[in-house]
C-alpha cells in the first residue's frame, strides 16, 4: 500500500456500454451504493494497476450535463467538485454525433478527458468508419478503441488513462467549441466581470462559468451565490443582461442557441472523421421490433413475458423457499433442544429467528425477479415495455416506465419501490412510490388464501382476484387525484431512446441481480431484525401476569390456550384491545385487530398471529386455523372486510423504510402510512356496513 492514488470517472450516454466497461475493469471488486442524498445508484471499484490504486467511478449515464435530471446533476457535480484525475468518456461509435455532444460539454468543464470509442466493431458492420486519429487531433483528446462485450481494449484504456493523468497538469484549452460572434462577445464580457469580482473564490473554469450563466444554469447560480456572496450579484446582473441581449438578437432562448452551436461544432468534426458507406444493412434490432412492438401481437407478447417473469419468480422460487424454510425449522428446533429455557431463548427463537427467517425466505423470489428485470434492462426490452405501456400509464399521470415498479409491487413492494428509481422526474418517482403499495404484494396472499379459503370455498379464487382488482382501481384513482393536487404538473417528457437490442451478458446479469439482492438483505434484514425484536417484546411482556387458570399444571392440550391468553394479556394484546373501537365498525374483533397490528412487521405475520390468537389447536397446519376461524364468529362479510383492509392498510415495516429511503423524506413516509390506512379503513367500512345494509352477513 501507500501507492499513489488516481480517481477515474466513467461518463457516457445511456446504452453506450458504460456499465459493461466498468464491469470489465473492476470485475467483482465493486461497491454499489447511493450518491449522497439521492437515490441514484453509485458504483465504485478499486483496482491495483501500473503502480497506482485506481478508483473507478461509474457516473450515471447522461446525454448532456445540463442540470435537468438528477443523473445529470450528479455526473456534473462529481466532475466539478471531486475533480477526478481523468474522465473517460465512453462513446458509442455508431452514435458518434450524439455522444460527442456530451464530450464537448466535458471538455468545457476543464477536466482531463479520454475517449473510449466503444463498439466500433458493431459500427463497422453497419458500414460506419471513424477516423480515430483525426478525431483525437481535432479535439485534442486521446482516443482508445474498446469492445465492451468482448472485453477488448480494457487494458489499453487504463494504460491511456494513467498516462494522461501523469502528463503534467496542463489541460489543452484549444479545440473547444467556439460559439458565434454575438455569443462569444457576451461570454468574454461576462468572463472579465467574473474574473474581476469573484475569480478568486470560484473553483470552476471561468469560461465554463460564463457559458453556464448565459444558459441560466440555476444550480451554478446558487453555488456562485453561496461561494461568493454579494460579490456575485454584479455577475448575475450582467449575465441577465447578456441573456436578454442574445434573446433579442436571435429570438430564441440562449440555451437553445448554445446547444445548436455545439451541434454545429460537432457537425464539423463529424464531416472530417466519419464516413458511412451506403451498404444496405440488415438491422436485426429493427426486425425484432417489428414483432415485439407490433400493433397486434406487441401487447400479448409483453404480457407473456410478464407472466413468465411472475411464474419464474413464484413457482421456481417456491423450491428454494421450501429449503430455506426447512433449514430455518431445523435450526430453530435444534436450538430449542440445545438451549435451556430462558427469556434469551424465547427472544432468539420466537423473535429473531422467526422474524428474520420470514424475510430471508423471500430472497429466492427477489433474486429471480431481479434477474428477470436485469434481462429486460440489459437486452433493451425495458424501454419497449415503457413504449407499449406509456399511453395507459399516462392516463394515471405517470410515465410508461412506472409500469415496471408497479407491476413488481405484486411481488414485493420493497424492490418495487426501489425500482422506481429508474424514473427520471422526482414527481413521477414519488407518485409511483405512493401508489405502489396498492399493488397487492405476495406476502398478503397467504392472508387472502386463509380468509377466502375459509369463508368463500370454491369462489375463493374470484374473491382474491377482485381484491387485487380493487387495489388496481384505487391506485388509478389515487394517481389521478395526487397528480391533480399534491404532485401537480405534467409528467416528465417521454423523449426516450429505444436502444438496439443486445444479447445480455451473463456476468453482468449476475452482478446486477446480486447487487440489488444484497441491498434487500442488508437494508431490510436490519429493519426486520429490530422490528421483530420489538414485536416479540410487545407480545412477550409483561411476563408475570395472573392467568385465568394455572396452565403450568395442566396438560399439553391446553398450551395453545396458554399461548392465546399470553398474547391477550401482553402489550400487543392491549394495543389490539385499545384499538377495538376502531376495528369493530369494519367487522374485525380484537384478535383480528392484533393480527393486523403485528402485520406491520410483515404481512404474512398476520396469518401466524391469527393462528396463535384464535388458538388453533395443534392439529395440522391450515385446517386447524380454518376451523378456529369458522367457530370464532367471523362471517364471510367480515372476512371480506378484513381482506380489503389488509390489501390497503399501512405498508409493512420494510416497505415503509424503503419509502423513507427512496423519497428521502419522513414527510412522504408518514403521508403514505396515514393515507393508506385511512383509505383502508373507509374501504373496509364501506364493504362491511354496505354489505350489512344489503343483507349479507
Amino acid at each position: 500500500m501507500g501507492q499513489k492514488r488516481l480517481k477515474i470517472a466513467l461518463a457516457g450516454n445511456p446504452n453506450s456500454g458504460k456499465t459493461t466497461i466498468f464491469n470489465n475493469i473492476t470485475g467483482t471488486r465493486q461497491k454499489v451504493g447511493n450518491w449522497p442524498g439521492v437515490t441514484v445508484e453509485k458504483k465504485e471499484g478499486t483496482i491495483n494497476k501500473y503502480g497506482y490504486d485506481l478508483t473507478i467511478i461509474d457516473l450515471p449515464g447522461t446525454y448532456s450535463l445540463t442540470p435537468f435530471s438528477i443523473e445529470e446533476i450528479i455526473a456534473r457535480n462529481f466532475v466539478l467538485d471531486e475533480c477526478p484525475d481523468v474522465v473517460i468518456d465512453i462513446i458509442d461509435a455508431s452514435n458518434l454525433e450524439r455522444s460527442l455532444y456530451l464530450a464537448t460539454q466535458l471538455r468545457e468543464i476543464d477536466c482531463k478527458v479520454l475517449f473510449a470509442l466503444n463498439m466500433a466493431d458493431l459500427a463497422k458492420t453497419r458500414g460506419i468508419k471513424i477516423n480515430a486519429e483525426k478525431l483525437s487531433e481535432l479535439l485534442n483528446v486521446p482516443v482508445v478503441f474498446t469492445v465492451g462485450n468482448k472485453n477488448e481494449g480494457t487494458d489499453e484504456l487504463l494504460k491511456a488513462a494513467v498516462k494522461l493523468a501523469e502528463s503534467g497538469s496542463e489541460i489543452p484549452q484549444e479545440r473547444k467549441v467556439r460559439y458565434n460572434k454575438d455569443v462569444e462577445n457576451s461570454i468574454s464580457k461576462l468572463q472579465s466581470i467574473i474574473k474581476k469580482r469573484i475569480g478568486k473564490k470560484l473553483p470552476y473554469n471561468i469560461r465554463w462559468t460564463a457559458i453556464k450563466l448565459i444558459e441560466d444554469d440555476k444550480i451554478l447560480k446558487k453555488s456562485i451565490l453561496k461561494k461568493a456572496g454579494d460579490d456575485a450579484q454584479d455577475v448575475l446582473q450582467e449575465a441577465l443582461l447578456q441573456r436578454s441581449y442574445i434573446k433579442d438578437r436571435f429570438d430564441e432562448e440562449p440555451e437553445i442557441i448554445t446547444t445548436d452551436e455545439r451541434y454545429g461544432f460537432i457537425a464539423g468534426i463529424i464531416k472530417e472523421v466519419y464516413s458511412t458507406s451506403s451498404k444496405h444493412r440488415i438491422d436485426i434490432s429493427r426486425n425484432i421490433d417489428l414483432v415485439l412492438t407490433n400493433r397486434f401481437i406487441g401487447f400479448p407478447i409483453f404480457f407473456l413475458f410478464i407472466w413468465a417473469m411472475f411464474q419464474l419468480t413464484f413457482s421456481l422460487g417456491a423450491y428454494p423457499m421450501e429449503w430455506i424454510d426447512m433449514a430455518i425449522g431445523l435450526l430453530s428446533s435444534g436450538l430449542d433442544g440445545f438451549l435451556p429455557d430462558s427469556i434469551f431463548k424465547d427472544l432468539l427463537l420466537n423473535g429473531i429467528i422467526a422474524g428474520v427467517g420470514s424475510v430471508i425466505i423471500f430472497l429466492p423470489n427477489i433474486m429471480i425477479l431481479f434477474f428477470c428485470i436485469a434481462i429486460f434492462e440489459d437486452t433493451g426490452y425495458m424501454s419497449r415495455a415503457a413504449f407499449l405501456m406509456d399511453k395507459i400509464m399516462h392516463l394515471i399521470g405517470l410515465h410508461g416506465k412506472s409500469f415496471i415498479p408497479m407491476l413488481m409491487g405484486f411481488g414485493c413492494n420493497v424492490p418495487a419501490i426501489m425500482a422506481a428509481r429508474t424514473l427520471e422526474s422526482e414527481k413521477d418517482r414519488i407518485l409511483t412510490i405512493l401508489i405502489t403499495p396498492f399493488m397487492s404484494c405476495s406476502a398478503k396472499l397467504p392472508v387472502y388464501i386463509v380468509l377466502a379459503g375459509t369463508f368463500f370455498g370454491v369462489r375463493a379464487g374470484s374473491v382474491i382476484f377482485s381484491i387485487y382488482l380493487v387495489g388496481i382501481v384505487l391506485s388509478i384513482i389515487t394517481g389521478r387525484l395526487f397528480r391533480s393536487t399534491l404532485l401537480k404538473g405534467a409528467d416528465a417528457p417521454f423523449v426516450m431512446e429505444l436502444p438496439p437490442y443486445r444479447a445480455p451478458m451473463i456476468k453482468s446479469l449476475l452482478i446486477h441481480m446480486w447487487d440489488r439482492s444484497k441491498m434487500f438483505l442488508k437494508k431490510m434484514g436490519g429493519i426486520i431484525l429490530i422490528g421483530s425484536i420489538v414485536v416479540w417484546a410487545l407480545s412477550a411482556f409483561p411476563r408475570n401476569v395472573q392467568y385465568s387458570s394455572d396452565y403450568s399444571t395442566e396438560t399439553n392440550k391446553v398450551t395453545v390456550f396458554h399461548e392465546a391468553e399470553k398474547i391477550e394479556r401482553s402489550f400487543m394484546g392491549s394495543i389490539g384491545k385499545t384499538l377495538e373501537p376502531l376495528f369493530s365498525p369494519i367487522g374485525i374483533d380484537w384478535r383480528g385487530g392484533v393480527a393486523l397490528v403485528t402485520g406491520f412487521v410483515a404481512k404474512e405475520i398476520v396469518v401466524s398471529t391469527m393462528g396463535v390468537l384464535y388458538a388453533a389447536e395443534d392439529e395440522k397446519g391450515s385446517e386447524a386455523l380454518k376451523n378456529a376461524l369458522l367457530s370464532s364468529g367471523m362471517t364471510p362479510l367480515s372476512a371480506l372486510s378484513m381482506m380489503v383492509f389488509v390489501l390497503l392498510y399501512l405498508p409493512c415495516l420494510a416497505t415503509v423504510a424503503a419509502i423513507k429511503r427512496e423519497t428521502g423524506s419522513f414527510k412522504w413516509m408518514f403521508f403514505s402510512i396515514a393515507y393508506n390506512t385511512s383509505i383502508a379503513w373507509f374501504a373496509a367500512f364501506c364493504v362491511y356496513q354496505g354489505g350489512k345494509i344489503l343483507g349479507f352477513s
Partner: protein
Amino acid sequence: MLLSEMKEGQTGNIKSIAGNGALHRRILEMGILKGSEVHIEKYAPLKDPLELIVKGCHISLRVEEASLITVDNVK
C-alpha cells in the same frame, strides 16, 4: 406539417421546434435537430407514443411532444 401528423413510414426534415426550454433542449440533446431527417418508424399499439429514427437512433416521443415539432419535405 406537424411531426405528429406524419404517418407511419413517412420521412421528413425538421423545420422548427417549439415548446418550453427544458423539453426543447431535451429534444435537441437526443439529436433531433433543425434540418435532420426523421423517419416515422411506427406508432405504439395504442397510437401513442411514436417511434422515430433520427440519424440511425430510435427515439420515442409522445404525440403531444411531437406536435411541437414542425417538419417539411414530407415523403
